[in-house]
């Protein structure tokens, strides 16, 4: 049970980074930390007590495997996280060229 609470704690650390930091790159790192914590939570959901990796090979003694479905979900989620981070970084580089700074207190052209 403590493992799941540590996962939620890591999610809250990432959320703190997104909400309070002023540099654009630190906001992007906060979103990445939140992604890692959700992937970790998904893998831990599929743990079976005393299980081994779910691969058929020769010389297998007992037949208890861990659940392979969350592992397939996490592979897809990692690829989606990669696409999100790449697009955020590309937009951040263009913002630096146009505004000249990474500070979000200077980037306030749209109001109302």
């Amino acid at each position, binding site marked *: 049970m403590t493992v799941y609470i540590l996962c939620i704690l890591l999610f809250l650390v990432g959320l703190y980074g997104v909400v309070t930091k002023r540099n654009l790159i630190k906001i992007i790192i906060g979103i990445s930390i939140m992604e890692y914590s959700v992937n970790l939570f*998904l893998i831990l959901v599929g743990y079976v007590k005393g299980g081994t990796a779910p691969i058929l090979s020769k010389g297998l003694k007992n037949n208890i495997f861990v659940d392979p479905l969350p592992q397939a979900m996490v592979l897809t989620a990692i690829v989606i996280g990669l696409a999100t981070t790449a697009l955020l970084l590309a937009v951040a580089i263009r913002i630096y060229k146009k505004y000249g700074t990474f500070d979000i207190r200077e980037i306030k052209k749209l109001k109302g």
Partner: protein
Amino acid sequence: MEIFVPLYVAIPLGCAFIGAIIGIFSKAFSRLFTSLVLAFMAGLSVYLILLQKFPIVYTVGGWKAFNRVPIGIYMVMDGLSVYLITIVNVIGFLSVFYSISYIKRFTGENYYYSLFSLMIAGMNGVVLSGDLFNLYVFLEIAAISSYALVAFGIEKEQLEASFKYQVLGGISSLFILLSIGLIYWYTSTLNIADISRVLSQKSFPKTIVFVEIILLSAFGLKAAMIPFHAWLPDAHSSAPSPISSMLSGVLIKAIGAYVIMRLFFNLFAISYSIAYVITVIGTISMVVGVLLAIGQWDIKRLLAYHSISQMGYVILGIGIGMLVISKNGNMDIASLAIAGGLFHLFNHAVFKGLLFLNAGAVEYVTGIRDMKRLGGLAGGMPITASTSMSASMSISGIPPFNGFFSKLIIIIASAKAGYYVLSILAVFVSMITLASFLKVQRFTFFNDNGEKWSERGITIKEVPFPMCFSMIFLAVLCIVLSFMVFPSVREVVLMPAVNVLLKSSMYSTNILGY
């Protein structure tokens, strides 16, 4: 007929990547090819709605259910799905046709058409999916394409708006993934029909209420409800105009309102407290949206705030239907409320798309978006002015346009169910909408400063043919759609969608067969 269901995802995906490769060598090819493919998809969806053979269940890969447990990925087309697919593909085709002449001034045109086709493929996948994690993957495809399209012409405002949109949308997607993990932990299956069957047999712990609240917040952000609306005015006003009409007309419905309907009617059992929260959120969005809109002087920002208000009408209709069903009230009143909400969904896609295309035409000719500096355009741009008048009368609720009928159905349903305060608020909001659009029409088209334009060196002439065609088609559709109140049209188009939501516990029996 089962073959068409996976083709809705495969054909736009193939069109996106063929256009990306061949478009590097010839730009005219990607324009024509994308328009033809999307016209074919729109025609196919109209054919399927007239065919009336529901529900169609398709198992990807041919993995049949083993021992009464579904182990494959299901794609489901029932009455609600085919209704939304028609909206997505028709508005998508008209926006692509409009952007043939609008996007000519940007470099990198072929990337625009590839991203557009990817967004259409993602939205088709969300509407047709019968599996919870598959819905999340297609939702991310559509959302990431829309983040890139908002930042397409690389100016200062567009980049800032796209960054804000991406951060907020990314956090809501992570909340959705967390709640999918919690649902899998509790029920150990991912198929929507199977989850609803398992949840109706077990007891009702606090975990499921927690998951419902997280899902309502995350999808409320995608559907732009108050208090999750902060990304919408910046993103919808800074994007290029055909993308604004797609985002505001289709995207917040297909990945926002549709998923709320599917999850809260068919997946979880209907409860009184969640229905109460949904109705309150709908009412507050309706009122606050229109009060924030009336003071704006930028055309596209005003239209974006009105989107929040009209989506509040849709969620209000759905919420009243859910309240009546949860108290075991009169089923006719619930059917009327849900039918009003779904009819307003279609109407809003048509007239809001038309309004954004008109704002784009005004910007194409004059280059100005501030209403204080416009005026006197009605003589030089007759088609834009007349279609804009038609759309403004439609959104304010003036007969015989389609907005009048759908708002009337929602007001009558809420009065019959006994919620008189909500009816009075809906009428009040409609009056303020009328005032706001009278302001738009006067300052943009009819302020009669004839010599002001020749002083600034801008000649006022009509926009090119592809843009005119899309605007005229949508304006005609505004009047044709008011025929939906007649019973013969209503039984074919609207009632299958309403019946899916009304008999909500029959979903798992229809799909799985037991």
